[in-house]
């Protein structure tokens, strides 16, 4: 309709092009060459312009709705589907650990080396301060049960690790306890070169961790010199400063630094490469630093591997580390694999244990039940559509009302009535007991299982089968059947060889429609399905509102959506989406 434009039809299609054509013709007769319009332009271009204007007008009419649907419907869905591959939480919460882990061989039998634990200490300390460690634990728990409690318990005890250094340093000189001493030392006093890069690094680190806006004046800038001689300390102190001002609304110079800062200082002091720099430092409290350096041997030496293993022995288990390493990327296929009952391992994706496979089974059940519902709808819908097609118009209108009334009745009303009819003390069981077909003790269980879902959904979706079938059957001339019979066909042969093949488009349209609607159903299975009659949609809803595993919900939703969209595409090819009839 859009592409095939006959030249004659074009002129008749809009008021703008009509005068152009009629006036152009006389000129075309007088002189050969390009046909010109009244204003002297070539007619072809003139027509194209008119056409373009029409197209733009049509687009302008559609544009508001298109934008509306994009904004309120399509973007939200795309946004949600994106969650199925998103994994920023791991690298955002443990940036240093993830980097250190890259060199660790997950196939080995040992927990990672010391530098990984160093990085983990700083990452986890900050995450605990920002109360983000439990979120990470929840995320990783989806992949390996037990990690949630590991992060939770570590978050509780991580303060104590640094306290040993804090106590030791304060024992050397009580000034280490004073917030103002720290502040002045780290900012390097007046006239020190400020290290803007380090500060903005700290802001970025905290922004990635908390997603809160970390810009804004904090009243502290580390000095470049101190950043050089005490790299870890100034890094941690900057993070502490940004967090103190922006998250806690406190003043940096008045707050004693975190244990992690003391820990960092001790590590810097214990690093032999840095001692020369500290010796020659001349800034504020240089003598305090030199004094600490001279007595560095009195500081305890903490083995972080042992310390973490003491907090929770799971840190010594390489399998936990393997999980962290496997899910350390910004994007992951982990949710998608989970949705098909697979899990990542160091050697690639593998199927889960037999007793943990649920989604493939659920997809399969959804598919089978949708097929059963579609088939039942066809079985029940075909005779009714046929009846509608052969009855005289007045009677068929009456029958049509019986079909349309359920169609127009609230879905919840229909589900409610099935719930009431099918229950063990319900009308159907009462009737069966009364008629003596079953005993009072042997009342049938027809609700809260697959039977209930199939009965209720067949009833709900039946009109969607009848209506397209009817619209096809209405167009089949009855003379074909008569012709077949007059040629000697029996009633059955005439139906099966002549009538039925002509109704196939209707069967296809109705079946696809019913199947598309059935496979994504949520309400009815939720209310009458119990545990054995639920669909994949119910699982998606469960993960969104109860288990809060949104990534997995999004992965399941993506798979369901792919199936539905393929069917939608097929439907569009066979029936044409604008041929959908409603009532």
């Amino acid at each position, binding site marked *: 309709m*859009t592409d095939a434009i006959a030249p004659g039809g074009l002129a008749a299609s809009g008021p703008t092009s009509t005068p152009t054509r009629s006036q152009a013709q006389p000129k075309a007769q007088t002189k050969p060459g390009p046909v010109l319009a009244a204003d002297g332009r070539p007619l072809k271009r003139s027509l194209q312009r008119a056409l373009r204007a029409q197209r733009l007008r049509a687009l302008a009419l559609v544009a508001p709705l298109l934008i509306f649907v994009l904004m*309120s419907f399509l973007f939200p869905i795309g946004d949600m589907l994106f969650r199925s591959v998103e994994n920023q939480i791991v690298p955002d919460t443990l940036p240093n650990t993830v980097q250190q882990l890259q060199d660790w061989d997950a196939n080995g039998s040992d927990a990672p080396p010391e530098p990984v634990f160093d990085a983990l200490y700083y990452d986890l300390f900050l995450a605990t301060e920002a109360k983000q460690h439990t979120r990470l634990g929840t995320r990783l728990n989806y992949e390996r049960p037990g990690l949630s409690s590991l992060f939770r318990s570590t978050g509780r005890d991580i303060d104590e690790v640094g306290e040993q250094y804090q106590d030791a340093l304060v024992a050397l000189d009580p000034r280490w306890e004073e917030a103002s001493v720290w502040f002045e030392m780290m900012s390097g006093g007046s006239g020190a070169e400020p290290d803007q890069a380090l500060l903005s690094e700290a802001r970025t680190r905290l922004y990635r961790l908390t997603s809160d806006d970390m810009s804004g004046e904090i009243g502290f800038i580390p000095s470049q010199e101190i950043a050089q001689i005490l790299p870890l300390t100034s890094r941690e102190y900057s993070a502490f400063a940004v967090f103190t001002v922006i998250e806690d609304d406190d003043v940096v110079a008045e707050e004693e630094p975190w244990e992690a800062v003391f820990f960092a200082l001790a590590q810097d002091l214990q690093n032999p490469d840095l001692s020369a720099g500290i010796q020659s430092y001349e800034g504020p409290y240089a003598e305090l630093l030199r004094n600490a350096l001279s007595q560095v041997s009195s500081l305890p030496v903490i083995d972080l591997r042992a310390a973490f293993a003491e907090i929770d022995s799971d840190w010594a288990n390489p399998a936990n580390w393997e999980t962290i390493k496997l899910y350390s990327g910004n994007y992951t296929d982990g949710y998608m694999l989970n949705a098909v009952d697979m899990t990542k391992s160091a050697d690639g994706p593998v199927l889960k244990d037999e007793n943990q496979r649920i989604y493939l089974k659920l997809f399969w059940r959804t598919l089978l039940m949708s097929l059963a519902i579609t088939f039942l709808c066809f079985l029940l819908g075909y005779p009714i559509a046929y009846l509608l097609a052969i*009855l005289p118009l007045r009677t068929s209108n009456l029958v049509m009302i019986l079909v349309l009334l359920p169609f127009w009745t*609230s879905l919840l009303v229909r589900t409610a009535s099935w719930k*009431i009819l099918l229950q063990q003390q319900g009308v159907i069981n009462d009737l069966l007991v009364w008629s003596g077909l079953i005993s009072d003790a042997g009342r049938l269980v027809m609700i809260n299982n697959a039977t209930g879902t199939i009965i209720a959904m067949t009833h709900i979706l039946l009109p969607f089968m009848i209506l397209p079938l009817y619209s096809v059957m209405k167009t089949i001339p009855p003379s074909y059947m008569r012709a077949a019979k007059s040629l000697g066909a029996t009633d059955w042969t005439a139906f099966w060889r002549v009538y039925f093949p002509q109704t196939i488009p209707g069967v296809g349209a109705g079946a696809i429609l019913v199947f598309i609607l059935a496979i994504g159903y949520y309400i009815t299975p939720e209310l009458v399905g119990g545990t054995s009659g639920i669909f994949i949609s119910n699982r998606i809803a469960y993960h969104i509102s109860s288990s809060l595993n949104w990534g997995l919900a999004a992965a399941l939703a993506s798979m369901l959506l792919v199936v539905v969209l393929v069917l939608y595409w097929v439907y*569009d090819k066979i029936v044409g989406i604008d041929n959908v009839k*409603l009532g």
Partner: protein
Amino acid sequence: MAALPPYASPGQRLWYWGFRAICVAILFFLIMPILVIVPLSFNAEDFFTFTRGMLALESSAYSLKHYEDFFTNDDWQQALWNSVRIAPVATMLAVTLGTLAAIGLSQPHMPFRSAIMAILISPMIVPLIISAAGMYFFYSRLGIQGTYWGVVLAHAALGIPFVIITVTATLVGFDRSLVRAAANLGASPVRTFFKIQMPLILPGVISGALFAFITSFDEVVVVLFVGSAGQKTLPWQMFIGLREQISPTILAVATLLVTISILLLTTLELLRRRSEKLRGMSPG
């Protein structure tokens, strides 16, 4: 086969009546669950089945107490009020944008017609749970999750396919030369639209509006996710009632909803006849 010919064989006779019996049974299956609700809603007891008294047609076995509960219970009244507040606004939004777009889509030179059509119909096809989840996350980000307007926008999006389908179907039978005639006589495009085109496609617009209305009025999945307690609609309240503990008030509500759907159906049928008459087709 419409009527049995006098020369029909016994087998044909048997099939003729057998087929009709099957059809009656299927129609019974279709309509019975809806009708059975009506007498049960007048049950004087809190049972979901017919009591002996009801079967014996004793007047004491019937009562209006479930209806009374519906009209006096604050939860139900609030839910009803929310539904009444949300559905018409969502319908207006869907109909206004949808009708404009349907007219645009019916223009002879509409570019990307099938792609745009597929996008606009998609809210009807995409499983509701997926739409609901997407809207929940996205609307939370925009800060309209749990607000009145969030629910209205979501419901409008769900109603749009129905408006598009019904209005484009009416426009197929629309004689475009009428528009040109109006333009020829000097009417502006806006005047032509309201004086010529609108009255002729009005039946389609109204039936689209009814579909959009019932979609919103009947919708529960999206409102469960996008709404908050302040937007609890009638279907939401019913859903909770059905999932947790069935209260017989649901039967009264269901009966009222069935009445509404009968009214809607009647309106639609009248509209269809009028539309066919207007378009010069044989009256039904």
